[in-house]
């Protein structure tokens, strides 16, 4: 029974985390691509800010992964 619970825990967590990273990174790219200065010279600052937030979130997840990987830290 415990094995089945472990399996579903791993399945749900892996799907959610991988999906979250993919969403964040893809949205970061999309927002970055849409934040270029337009023909009228307007820079889309909020779009770029959103993109940066998405990428920073990805970096945080990677750092958390490193923290999990290195027993020295916990």
């Amino acid at each position, binding site marked *: 029974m415990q*094995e089945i619970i*472990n*399996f579903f*825990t*791993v*399945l749900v*967590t*892996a*799907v959610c*985390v*991988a*999906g979250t*990273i*993919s*969403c964040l*990174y*893809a*949205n970061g*790219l*999309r927002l*970055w*691509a*849409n934040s270029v200065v337009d023909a009228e010279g307007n820079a889309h600052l909020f779009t770029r800010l959103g993109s940066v937030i998405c990428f920073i979130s*990805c970096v945080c997840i*990677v750092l958390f*992964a*490193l923290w*999990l*990987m*290195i*027993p*020295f830290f916990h």
Partner: protein
Amino acid sequence: MYMDIATLVVVGLVIVTALTFDFTNGFHDTANAMATSIATGALKPKTAVIAAGILNLVGAFLSTEVAKTISGGIINESQVAIGPEFIFAGLVGAIVWNLITWLVGLPSSSSHAMFGGLVGAVIVGAGVEGVNFGMVITKVLIPALISPIVAGLAAFLSVKLILRIVRSINEKTVDSGFRHGQTVTACLVALSHGTNDAQKTMGLITLTLVAVGVQPSGSSPALWVVALCGLAIALGTYTGGWRVIRTLGKGLTEISTPQGFAAEAASATTILVSSHLGFALSTTQVCSGSIIGSGLGKKGAKVNWSVAVRMAVAWLVTFPAAGLVGAAACALAKTGIGGTIAVAGIAIAIALIIVHLSHRNPINAANVNDQKDVKINTPAATTTPAAA
């Protein structure tokens, strides 16, 4: 502490064999982290194997927790005395199986091969009571079935999400963006491989040193053992198991950079989550599953199911096949020092034959992405009208 010459020879052979296994583990498993990055062009082949080698070396020094568990409960280490010749025979079984699967370009679990070899050797050397078959089911059989499903589903959904989000932006931006992301996720997989796989060999060498009284029971691996194992797996990784890299990167499905990113992210996440929850899955099976999942996630992409089925068969056969070789090796090794040396000689001969066969159709950094399949003999040259 006094050690007779026969014991000294056996211990020396175990250490050399363990390091050789670590080397084969490295080159066999380079593909797990780097195959998709090489296939999509996110990293140049040589750069990829150098990065993977360095990260495996770093990973070996980061933790020695896995080294203390060694067989993960599959062998009843407290009930049977595991002699150095058992470990030697088990490692021979694992090395031979790793080399065979490498020759035909099939990604198979080096850990399962090691456990299989050890179980076969222990059954012959100490009897069936030396093996905990319940743990074989929970640590080998169930993970083999679960790993590809978990990672495959995670990669499948990730690809679907990514392609939906980036559909409005131009292909060049998508390709270049995910190329950078894929490099990071691939490095995470390589690092996690180093923190796990090098330690298994450290554990075996330490177990041998404990068995002959060089180290006290329950002690951690010595620094020279950690350094040697880290170097062996890093060198193996750097050598690059190009045959397995081709199968994973090109043979299963045609991968674009968003798919590669999703596959690596799903692999890294699954490996980390499962090991953190104490539910260790095979890196090889996780990575293969995520590549299949990423292939299925993209509309119009095709998965080569004949390769996938061959891989699945190899996963199921790995444990018993390495076990049979380990059992045969142990039967000969336990006859004495002469038998042990004979096993070493036979193993070297088999390895040389396999390496010789691989030279018929060499696959290396220069041609790894040229074709999709791995054949033992060089495929007949074909002349296309354009080329002619």
